[in-house]
């Protein structure tokens, strides 16, 4: 089904103020259902036609004890009447369901910001649990904010008395109360949520009703009590016309693989091993077997990629998914794929490192591992999505390269992209690229001997033929030892080895990738910001802010890290200064400096969190001033 935009009726009474953008953060205990609450508000905003971006923030993998700081879970969303690029730096509105949530998040709320607190949880015990000496709701520590104290639990339980639901169960619905209240404040359409709740709890009608009642109670609470003087309106954004949906990076990536399977006509075999934050790709793909997708949860990462490579040898589209530590384990097998020149897609959803690091946090520090993390000269193309929805296209592109050039391809997503979500203009299936491949069926020996040479190459792509077992007359053996070009026989010949090393490199260097486009509206910029991956949003937003300040800046974002776009060198040379913001210690910067001898400056942050637009705005502004001075 699809909802038409609109019908966010303005509530009576309260004064209405118009805003172009709002950032709301829901924060509570892992058990409080903040992710669901955020998701729902997101759908409402989407249905209403705002542009938006979200940033979920889970606690570390293990559930911490209730009410503790490590147990805090939050969901931030940014919605606006124009197209936005980030989930927002800081919340305008913070909803805190308990003391822990307040303590963990209040620091991010700017002075004057709106704070909505569920007072019911502010017991002495809960306060001391998180080290509040005195109750912040009573002392003056919050006076810088517009504080709304709401006994959400009590009010919810009250609203549900009729249902005869037990106190505990009733109290569980308080997140819907909060959602109702916020929906009222921002004139959100409500039927979507009500429908959602009915579907979600289809089997438990009572629970469904309870949640809907709580939701309405929240709405009515805003409507009827005086405590909220103003409500806000954020008009729909005028996005490109078409049908949209909300999508996370991992889902978009999984859909990209499904689509690639359909467009190539190949069965897909995912060989993988669970790891945060990549597991959802496995979860998603395992639900779509009707598309000819086999998902194999192997005993470890090495077996996962091994199975994928074996499937590729058999003529399937082999895919493996993991995060940084898993890539380390797969590196030997990636090398085998390089040597055997078989198509393979290796997905790395990057997380905080080194070692186990910060499994639930984001980072982009696996670029050099992707480039160089194998023994010998072992070149592999590297592709990176720049936002959640972009994962779909990036996946298709990675598959295109793998199939066309018969090579493993590294697809570098990251934790922020994987779990973040944004509206996605649903593509027309028939307009998706044709990825069909042709298998070798005939002997090809140039000497006319009627033999099959598995390492004879397509002069244009330098790809070798893909001859799958079962093809009569093409029996051949491949493996990890150096191969003679052409015949593919084992060769210890020094000249052949040198030739093959360079040939594998040229094959990757010769991969067709589109030129990088530069965003420089005024054309007057002397400073260029270059990025890759999930920094797209913050860099883009920062550039806009800088331009609002009346300065000029150019932004180029790389989808292809290997090979680089052909025009990249020329682009870099056009600017007085090149700055490379990265969530690592300067890995792309290193590659650019080495390749183009351009004095690219790194701006790095490795906090497991995305850049803030404001932070980058200041960095860019300073550099621009420096150049123009």
């Amino acid at each position, binding site marked *: 089904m699809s909802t038409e935009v609109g019908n966010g009726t303005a509530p009576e009474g309260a004064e209405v103020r118009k805003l172009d953008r709002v950032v709301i953060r829901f924060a509570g205990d892992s058990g409080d259902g903040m992710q669901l609450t955020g998701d729902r508000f997101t759908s409402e905003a989407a249905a209403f036609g705002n542009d938006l971006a979200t940033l979920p923030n889970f606690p570390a993998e293990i559930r911490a004890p209730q009410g503790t700081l490590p147990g805090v879970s939050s969901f931030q969303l940014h919605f606006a009447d124009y197209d936005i690029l980030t989930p927002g730096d800081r919340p305008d509105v913070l909803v805190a369901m308990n003391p822990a949530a307040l303590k963990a998040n209040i620091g991010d709320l700017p002075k004057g910001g709106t704070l909505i607190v569920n007072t019911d949880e502010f017991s002495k015990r809960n306060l001391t649990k998180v080290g509040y000496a005195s109750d912040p709701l009573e002392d003056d520590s919050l006076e810088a904010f517009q504080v709304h104290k709401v006994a959400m639990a009590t009010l919810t339980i009250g609203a549900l008395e009729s249902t005869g639901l037990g106190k505990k169960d009733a109290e569980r619905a308080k997140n819907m109360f909060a959602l109702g209240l916020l929906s009222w404040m921002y004139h959100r359409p409500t039927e979507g949520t009500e429908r959602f709740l009915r579907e979600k709890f289809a089997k438990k009608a009572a629970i469904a009703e309870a949640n809907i009642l709580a939701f309405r109670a929240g709405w009515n609470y805003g409507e009827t009590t005086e405590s909220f003087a103003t409500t806000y309106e954020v008009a729909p954004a005028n996005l490109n016309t078409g049908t949209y949906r909300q999508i996370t990076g991992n889902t978009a990536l999984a859909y990209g693989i*499904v689509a690639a399977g359909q467009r190539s006509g190949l069965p897909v075999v995912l060989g993988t091993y669970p790891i945060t934050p990549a597991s959802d790709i496995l979860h998603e793909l395992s639900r779509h077997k009707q598309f000819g997708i086999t998902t194999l949860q*192997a005993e470890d990462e090495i077996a996962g990629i*091994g199975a994928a490579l074996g499937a590729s040898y058999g003529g399937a589209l082999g895919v493996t998914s993991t995060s940084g530590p898993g890539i380390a384990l797969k590196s030997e097998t990636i090398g085998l794929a390089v040597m055997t020149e078989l198509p393979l897609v290796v997905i790395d959803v990057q997380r905080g490192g080194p070692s186990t690091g910060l499994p639930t946090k984001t980072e982009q520090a696996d670029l050099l591992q992707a480039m160089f993390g194998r023994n010998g000269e072992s070149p592999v193309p590297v592709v990176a999505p720049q936002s959640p929805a972009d994962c779909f296209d990036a996946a298709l592109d990675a598959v295109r390269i793998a199939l066309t050039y018969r090579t493993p391809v590294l697809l570098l997503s990251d934790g922020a992209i994987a779990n973040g979500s944004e509206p996605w203009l649903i593509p027309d299936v028939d307009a998706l690229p044709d990825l069909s491949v042709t298998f070798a069926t005939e002997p090809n020996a140039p000497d006319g001997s009627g033999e099959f040479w598995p390492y004879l190459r397509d002069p244009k792509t330098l790809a070798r033929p893909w001859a799958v*077992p079962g093809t009569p007359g093409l029996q051949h053996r*491949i493996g990890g030892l150096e191969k003679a070009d052409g015949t593919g026989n084992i060769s210890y010949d020094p000249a052949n080895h040198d030739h093959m090393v360079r040939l594998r490199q040229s094959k990757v260097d010769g991969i067709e990738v589109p030129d990088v486009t530069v965003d420089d509206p005024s054309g007057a910029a002397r400073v260029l910001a270059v990025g890759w991956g999930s920094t797209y949003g913050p860099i883009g937003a920062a550039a806009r802010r800088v331009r609002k300040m009346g300065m000029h800046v150019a932004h180029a974002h790389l989808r292809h890290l290997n090979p680089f776009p052909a025009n990249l060198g020329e682009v870099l040379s056009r600017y007085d200064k090149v700055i490379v913001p990265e969530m690592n210690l300067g890995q792309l910067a290193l590659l650019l400096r080495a390749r183009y001898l351009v004095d690219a400056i790194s701006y790095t942050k490795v906090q497991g969190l995305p850049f803030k637009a404001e932070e980058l705005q200041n960095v860019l502004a300073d550099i621009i001033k420096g150049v123009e001075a």
Partner: protein
Amino acid sequence: MTAIDLGLPGLGGLDGVPTTDEPQKAKDYKSDQEVRWCPGCGDYVVLNAVQSFLPSLGLKRENIVFVSGIGCSSRFPYYMNTYGMHSIHGRAPAIATGLAVARPDLSVWVVTGDGDALSIGGNHLIHTLRRNVNLKILLFNNRIYGLTKGQYSPTSEEGKVTKSTPLGSLDHPFNPVSLALGAEASFVGRAIDSDRKGLTEVLRQAAEHRGSALVEIYQNCPIFNDGAFDVLKDADEAQRRIINLTHGRPITFGRDDEYAVVRDGFGLAVAKTSEVDGSDVVVHDATDHNLAFALSRLSTQDLTHTITGVFRNVQRSTYDDAARAQVEQAKQAQTADLAALLRGKDTWTVAG
């Protein structure tokens, strides 16, 4: 327990693999590559045995694949005129699993060594066995690392003096058959390189078995572990030591069945047939997991008794059949509508 129902009991190991009526000869399975093992290496005889055996299956050669790891024995695929992959050390079972899952029309064989399969590759081996992927695994056990020029392996006897253990090795070796049985293997057999007939028989049963079949082959490495199995090759000694199994038949061996296997507590012992009551002689039942294990313990590292033939052979759902069945079921249940998938449940439209 859907998974089990998904299995297609009764299927043979080769069902689904296209056959040919053209008569085949051993030489049809020889590739154009020069065989490069040391003179006298046991790998030669096994290679010949396999090349002579395959024609009897009447399969299309192009539907046979040999996947190996790294090691002397793992050179095997180069010498077979079939499809093949000489992969990396220890990973052949994982690679073969992906291939078998993707391609029901292939007969997939894994060739591996005692180091390749049991040292670096041990985990993939035991998981392949428990999943019961339809693979035939030939484990060339020469009780040494040949390719790297003679270090001890997980099947070397304790105290073995090698390049890496000049004062003698300290590891208690694996009993590969016990290990496989502990890992839920549905088929476990053993043969000796020099025993062409016995080897061929085990290969035949392995090929017919649907699921993972582990075949341990005692293989002599004349260069780094020469004579490891000589006691089994001496005609007289062999009579006293080699116990060949046949399902459903009393377990006797030696000249004129001089010896018999009898119960000994929960285990087994060897007795003079003449000295025991016929009813006490153990009858081999390849479906009895506990008997198979007891037999593996009777067959000791020092070769006092060496059991050959098929220890265990039972039918259970194979991973690859089940995986394909799941995809088929899904296809039956839902149409593969990509547009619908991409749209999902919750969309909205921005009008022009």
